[in-house]
């Protein structure tokens, strides 16, 4: 698997614009940014380096995803650590957080270390395991959070994602316990009783389609409760995939009061709405469900003003048989890694809600900070680790999910024309992607 690209270690990114500022040449060597010099001068000063033309392109710190489902171990027919890492690299990512709802569940140091090692072997991105909060994601006994934190995988983010830690006592204990190693509980906010059998956002569309509704309050009630718990025990709470206007409002007020809460929004909740369900195509079935246009406006505003700290993909590959069926029987989730940056460009940059520096913050700096990922989300400065993404902001592309690495193709953007293309990705100084192509 080690081709030329993997061993090649010196590059000149010529005439790139760091965070869309004035063009420079950026020299990468020995895994770090060795030099930043006047545009057009880098090649002459580094004759053995491979030159990557970057005129008109934006240089970002490598993207960091706080919420990825890699499906290994257990559902390698849907995704593996290897193929998920490839999808991440294509999307400009240099780190992903692998969620715990694998089979077996990532509720022990052993499984966490296994996934972390698989990530290192694949070599495209840092794979940071997320530990389960409770054994088997069953919401009862606390998993060995300390053992996972102390292991080689250095787990810092814990989540029962896919399920909500709905018992308030257990949620309180978990929030308290992770203070020992400065961990964070990432809550999948879904009140289980209010969402039994729920299929899509509860509202005008669900009433018409006869699909069981998923009320906004099922998310908001848990967020409100957990914010109060985090305040009570003075611990760090992270809210996964915020999807409703009411949630944004609750988090905004909590932050004003100084409570240590952070939040994420997915690309799909920034762009897509519940009316896409009208044809009953389960590619639009996701948890939490797609909401209304008013909710989309609210989460965009929340992301722009910092109420929502980050974009996280909730990349959720599913084998075709789990989507090629009746809506009620289909699995929840959609692919997100290869399209995340373009969807953020579409929903936030072209609408001027965020500039590219803002994109770098929401997709790299802040998620690296929340996940405590070393060497990621760093400034674009000499001496920093060369985890970088190069984006052509003017290139539009038509999504073809069949081209994505990995066996799953459940992208809701299939056939859609999106702005901004990731042209190159560098992970610890090595090119994982050049010209939009994986390098090995």
């Amino acid at each position, binding site marked *: 698997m080690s081709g030329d690209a993997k061993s090649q270690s010196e590059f000149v990114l010529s005439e790139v614009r760091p965070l869309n500022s004035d063009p420079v040449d950026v020299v990468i060597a020995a895994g770090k940014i060795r030099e930043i010099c006047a545009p057009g001068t880098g090649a002459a000063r580094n004759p053995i380096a491979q030159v990557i033309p970057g005129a008109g392109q934006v240089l970002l710190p490598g993207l960091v995803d706080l919420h990825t489902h890699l499906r290994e171990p257990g559902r390698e027919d849907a995704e593996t650590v290897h193929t998920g890492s490839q999808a991440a690299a294509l999307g400009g990512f240099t780190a992903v957080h692998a969620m715990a709802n694998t089979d077996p569940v990532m509720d022990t140091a052993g499984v966490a270390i296994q996934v972390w090692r698989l990530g290192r072997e694949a070599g495209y991105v840092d794979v940071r395991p997320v530990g389960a909060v409770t054994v088997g994601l069953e919401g009862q006994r606390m998993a060995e959070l300390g053992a996972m934190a102390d292991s080689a995988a250095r787990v810092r983010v814990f989540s029962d994602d896919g399920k909500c830690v709905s018992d308030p006592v257990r949620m309180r204990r978990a929030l308290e316990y992770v203070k020992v190693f400065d961990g964070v509980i990432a809550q999948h906010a879904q009140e289980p009783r209010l969402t039994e059998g729920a299929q899509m956002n509860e509202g005008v*569309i669900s009433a018409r389609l*006869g699909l069981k509704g998923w009320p906004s309050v099922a998310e908001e009630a848990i967020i409100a409760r957990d914010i109060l718990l985090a305040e009570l025990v003075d611990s760090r709470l992270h809210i996964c995939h915020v999807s409703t206007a009411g949630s944004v409002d609750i988090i905004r007020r909590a932050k004003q009061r100084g409570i240590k809460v952070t939040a994420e929004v997915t690309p799909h909740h920034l762009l897509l709405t519940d009316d896409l369900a009208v044809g009953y195509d389960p590619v639009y079935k996701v948890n939490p469900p797609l909401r209304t246009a008013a909710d989309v406006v609210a989460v965009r505003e929340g992301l722009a003003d910092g109420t929502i700290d980050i974009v996280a993909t909730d990349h959720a590959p599913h084998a075709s048989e789990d989507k090629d069926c*009746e*809506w009620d029987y289909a699995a929840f989730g959609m692919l997100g890694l290869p399209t995340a940056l373009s969807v953020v460009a579409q929903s936030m940059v072209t609408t001027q809600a965020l500039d590219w520096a803002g994109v770098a913050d929401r997709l790299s700096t802040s998620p690296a900070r929340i996940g405590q990922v070393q060497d990621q989300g760093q400034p674009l400065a000499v001496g920093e680790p060369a985890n970088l993404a190069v984006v052509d902001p003017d290139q539009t592309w038509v999504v073809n999910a069949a081209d994505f690495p990995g066996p799953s193709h459940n992208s809701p953007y299939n056939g859609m024309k999106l702005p901004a293309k990731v042209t190159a990705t560098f992970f610890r100084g090595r090119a994982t992607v050049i010209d939009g192509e994986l390098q090995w």
Partner: protein
Amino acid sequence: MKHLLNTNDIGRDEAVLILDTASEMANLTDRSVKKLPALRGRTVVNLFFEDSTRTRISFEAAAKRLSADVISFSAKGSSVSKGETLKDTALTLEAMGADAVVIRHSASGAPYRLATSGWIEGSVINAGDGGHQHPTQALLDAYTMRRHLRANTGDLSGLKVMLVGDVLHSRVARSNVALLHTLGAEVTLVSPPTLLPVGVEQWPARVAYSLDEDLEAQDVVMMLRVQRERMNEAYFPSAREYSRRYGLDSERMARLPKDSLVMHPGPMNRGLEIGDMVADSDRSVIVEQVANGVTV
């Protein structure tokens, strides 16, 4: 019209044409011409993932009357057993050369998947999907109303129709509201708030919580089936309280105008949403509803 999935897709003229065609068919039947050649040489498959002997028999009889070859699959048989997916079944039907598939399914939208996913070429007729739609039931209900109250011609302009009961879970309510509105009827939904969907305020119907408000003005009262299990999920306190507040008993029926109709899509829960006396009274067209199913 290639498929029949949803009464929202049927325009006013199209609906009237369907009802007119149904009356012609009925005339022919009365003249004891039992078979028409309309679908000779065509294969119609009845695909019943959810059991409904009555609906299945109606469709079989109707297709046979139109000279089609009929094949029936039902969930209780071996062919649509657990494990075989809708997609696999559809591919089998396609291989058999089905020209039309009549599907009944407990999952809302299953007929859409069949019609739009490219699994089959033929027409798809929705014979009831989950809590979504039951367009043929709505058509036969409209046919029945028109026959009795509009001399079997034209649309249903100005007709006052009340649908009473579990609107939330009812595909009959959804398909009837849309079709009746298209045909010009004024629809009122009567239900406890727990059995109304969030979003019902956007439907082309008036919503009321009390059955006693406007009973005297109704041309048609249609009682929707209420499953007794709903009270275990706290939709209402008890069968007794439900029938007291939302059941059509003899007393309430006495308040209806003389020529009004009492309807029920069946199967009935006698003593819950409808009283014995009411169900069997001369106002009740419930048995005729079944017969008209074949016609439509």
